[in-house]
């Protein structure tokens, strides 16, 4: 079933038990919404010694948006700004690929499970919501992304 390429096991796992989800406590908190469906995310992080730290997010949303937030948090936490920048670039490209890319597991880790989303244009924004919030928060914390 085509649907299974969208809802991979690892996505549902993250959806059921999201990582890094909690009450964001950082001074700079970003709030992003998906105006089409009303999904929301609040996110804060810190950048210490050039590395992404203390990333916490909270929000409501569909399985794709929740799983994507969880996967993204795992992926960038502890990474250098440069590594995060590369992951963000590759993930954005993957989402816009309309199913033509698989994603580089070395860089994207669990996020390659979201490759199937790119075949469902209306869901791409769900997957990108947390990444855009991350980007915004990192920039506000002084990172060049």
């Amino acid at each position, binding site marked *: 079933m085509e*649907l299974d390429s969208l809802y991979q096991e690892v996505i*549902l796992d993250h959806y059921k038990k999201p990582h890094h989800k909690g009450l964001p406590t950082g001074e700079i908190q970003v709030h992003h919404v998906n105006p089409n469906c009303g999904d929301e995310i609040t996110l804060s992080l810190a950048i210490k010694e050039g590395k992404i730290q203390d990333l916490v997010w909270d929000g409501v949303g569909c*399985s794709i948006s929740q799983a994507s937030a969880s996967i993204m948090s795992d992926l960038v936490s502890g990474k250098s700004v440069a590594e995060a920048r590369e992951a963000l670039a590759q993930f954005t490209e993957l989402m816009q690929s309309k199913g033509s890319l698989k994603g580089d597991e070395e860089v994207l880790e669990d996020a390659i499970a979201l490759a199937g989303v790119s075949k469902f244009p209306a869901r791409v924004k769900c997957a990108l919501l947390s990444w855009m919030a991350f980007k915004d928060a990192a920039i506000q914390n002084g990172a060049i992304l």
Partner: protein
Amino acid sequence: MSSILDVARIKRDFPIFQAEMRGGKRLVFLDSGATSQKPIQVMDAEREFYSKHNAAVHRGSYYLAEQASEAYEGARARVAAFLDVSAEEVIFTKSATESLNLLAVSFERSTGMLGINAGDEIVVSELEHHANLLPWQQLAKRTGAVLKWFEMNPDGSLDLSDIDRVITPRCKVVAITHLSNVLGSVPDIAPIIAAAHAVGAVFVLDGCQSVPHQPIDIATLDIDFLVFSGHKALGPTGIGVLWGRAQLLEQMEPYLYGGSMIETVTMTGATWASAPKKFEAGVPNMAQAVGLAAGLEYLSEVGLPSIHNWEMQLTDHAIRGLNSIEGVKVIGPQGIENRGGVISFVIAGLHPHDVGQVMDQYGVAVRTGHHCAWPLIRKLGLAGTTRASFYLYNEMADVDVFLESVIGARDYFGKR
């Protein structure tokens, strides 16, 4: 039973039902609340206009221009006949959204009874689509007027217990939906209209979800303005209607300025034509007006009472079905009293987006989210709903596939 439509015959007029959905599934279109599908008669009417009568209306005296003007004004006359009003009271806009913005801005620019000034009150409800909330909310912000609203009860009706506090002598405009595009509920507008008129306010009815689906009688309703969108009534995209009482339209300032809406023009000033021209600046959406007239004619031929009756049968079957599925909850009115063919529901533990995605796999087109009525969704404490809405081309079998797909959605996530 006479009220059962010959849906099989009707469907043959709608080419979209030959299109294949994901995985080769047939289309079960349950999103007519967002936009309707188009019969071939509407497409043919537009093509005929472009192929035989296309020229700028009102601006030429040559043969084609006469034909174009006749087609366009003929369309206006047919819309007027459909609404049982006079043609000069029918204004073509691009959408219901534009019709409502036109009213708000024209009131802002007008003086006298219709003019909106600081301290005036404007009344809406928590049921409203953004299109019937934001123009008024922003008008209030710009002018210093006060936006007030009727609250919604959990069943989708309006709380009228404080009607005298909501509608006061300062009230200038009351704008309410005829039928909720989220819940399908029908607010009790009669007392609101009476209260509005008692204080000298005008009443604007958002007929987007009612006009295409049931007979409505403007005179009995005793409203002052009515708006609806062509694309939800079998018509083309890019056309909407604003009906207003002649003597009110006469007092109103224009909304769009340009060609064909003027009486005289100099570099420093201008005077305006009378309605409807005053509100139709520029070369108008001629082909879309002609297409809309064909769409309304199609509805009249099938018969709006029969269409409404059929939609309610579909709705009844769907609500009963949903209520029998464990974990599914219908939001809004639970029966078929005081409602139209729009049903919102949620599945416990699932996000509407995920629900809709699985249903899509069955060929079922439903809408998910806040349905452009975010305050209503927030009031219900929800993240959104999944919404099915019916129209004349839906068969009883569509409801069965729909119910099957709802179970499928629940189980797809439940099992894993």
